């Protein structure tokens, strides 16, 4: 696949986030404003310099770009997008911002994801109507994302012999990463036994295979590479991106297998060049199948790979260094992009337990050693990005 014309032409220049909690006690607009102001400040621009906005959701739980524009009295918005494609679209949200900048429509695009994803969800309940495609699913009790996506895991287990012990090791490693992340919701270490003793949610997933629910907001600013070089932090360049889904060869494979050749070709690199990956992890084995399909481990071998800790901070490809959706927070993957940016900046992550320079002491430090290229992706490989410093 040829290199993409957008390669290295745009960059992520600012990142921001609120506290992550189970019950913020704040409105979603309030949370969004906080993350936006922090991202703008991190970039060294005024919030009034934002002239484009992109956000996404699944069950409508957030504010529109228009509401945010009004709340901050932003004088000029040249493009805004309110997209309901959910966690599969996380990296595509950033890619969209890149395209808007590269196309000359916008200068500084804000990408945000905000919700009272725990407290408002509990209040809202789960009433749904079985229309459209849902008429073939809801009457049979597909009521939870673990049921929607769990069939990939069962098929992978049957085809490759992957076990729930393998899945436990992924949960344990990501929790270990989260213990080194001050903003993570879950910072108490867990063991394989804890995982095996946790209750079934939807077989083959137990409680500790499943992601969190979170109140809060994350935001980032995409601008041109040229402008980014004059901003507060060295740029994190967007090398390539893909955002779309089609059929896969079987239940044991995700769309990442379709996306990978375009993504790597678009950047002119191979999976071996990726130093750190922030992979969509709504459920343990779903994340593991992504790891195979992006080429970090041969197909069918991810169980042993994870058992040996090759996804750890000093492993072959460090993955979900912040703890991921499983242990940091659930922002449908935009928190993964924030983490990739932190890892790629010269000063590294700012919210681990290191005081002063990074030590790589894994009781305090979650910074990966000198990463140059990072991969991020959304649910089922529905979108993905390659970033570099």
């Amino acid at each position: 696949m040829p290199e993409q014309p957008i390669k290295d032409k745009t960059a992520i220049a600012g990142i921001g986030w609120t506290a992550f909690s189970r019950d913020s006690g704040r409105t979603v607009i309030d949370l969004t404003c906080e993350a936006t102001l922090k991202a703008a400040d991190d970039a060294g621009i005024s919030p009034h310099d934002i002239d484009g906005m992109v956000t996404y959701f699944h069950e409508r739980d957030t504010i529109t770009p228009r509401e945010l524009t009004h709340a901050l009295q932003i004088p000029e918005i040249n493009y805004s997008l309110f997209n309901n494609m959910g966690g599969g679209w996380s990296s595509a949200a950033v890619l969209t911002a890149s395209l808007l900048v590269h196309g000359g429509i916008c200068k500084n695009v804000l990408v945000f994801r905000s919700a009272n994803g725990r407290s408002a969800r509990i209040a809202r309940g789960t009433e749904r109507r079985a229309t459209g495609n849902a008429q073939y699913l809801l009457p049979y009790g597909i009521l939870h994302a673990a049921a929607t996506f769990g069939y990939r895991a069962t098929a992978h287990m049957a085809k490759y012999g992957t076990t729930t012990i393998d899945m436990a090791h992924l949960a344990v490693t990501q929790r270990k990463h989260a213990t080194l992340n001050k903003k993570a919701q879950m910072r108490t270490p867990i063991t394989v036994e804890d995982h095996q003793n946790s209750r079934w949610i939807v077989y083959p997933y137990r409680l500790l295979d499943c992601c969190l629910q979170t109140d809060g907001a994350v935001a980032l600013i995409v601008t041109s590479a040229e402008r980014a070089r004059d901003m507060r932090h060295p740029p994190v360049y967007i090398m390539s991106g893909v955002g779309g889904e089609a059929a896969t060869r079987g239940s044991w494979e995700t769309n990442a297998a379709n996306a990978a050749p375009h993504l790597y070709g678009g950047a002119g690199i191979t999976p071996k060049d990726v130093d750190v990956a922030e992979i969509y992890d709504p459920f343990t084995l779903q994340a593991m199948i992504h790891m195979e399909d992006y080429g970090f481990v041969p197909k069918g071998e991810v169980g042993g790979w994870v058992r040996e800790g090759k996804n750890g901070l000093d492993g072959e490809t460090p993955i979900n260094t912040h703890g991921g959706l499983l242990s940091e927070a659930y922002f449908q993957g935009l928190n993964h992009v924030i983490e990739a940016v932190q890892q790629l900046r010269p000063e590294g992550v700012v919210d681990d337990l290191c005081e002063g320079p990074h030590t790589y002491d894994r009781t305090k430090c979650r910074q990966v050693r000198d990463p140059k290229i990072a991969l991020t992706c959304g649910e089922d490989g529905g979108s993905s990005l390659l970033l570099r410093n």
Partner: protein
Amino acid sequence: MATEYAKILPVPDPDSRAFWDACKQHQLKAQRCSKCGRFRWPPNSVCPGCFSWDFEWVQLSGRGVVESFVVPHDVRAPGFKDEAPYVVAHIVMDGTDGNVRITSNVIGCNWEDVRVGMPVEVTFEDATEDITLHKFKPA
């Protein structure tokens, strides 16, 4: 009877009406393209292979194989809550060249006994006067 059914019911539409009507007659049907002969699922007006709009409804044998499955345990929705744990499977129907893959419950066995590759056959549950649901049991 109709008022006692607590679970979510399908809302038929112009594409699916004939399918649900067949279920009421305890027949499992799928569309086959009149031009290229390809089966498709879920119901839709146009063939995804040759893009012909001509099709016929064909009664399937009702037999298929479990391609994969999940077992919801933690369920709060009315009706489903009392049945959990229950099996929801992807079932590839025999004689459709793999093009009809139906999501449904496998009933009549313990969830621990369900396996990928297990043969199953259709059975029908009259949920209300208007709606009959296709389900599957071990063949």
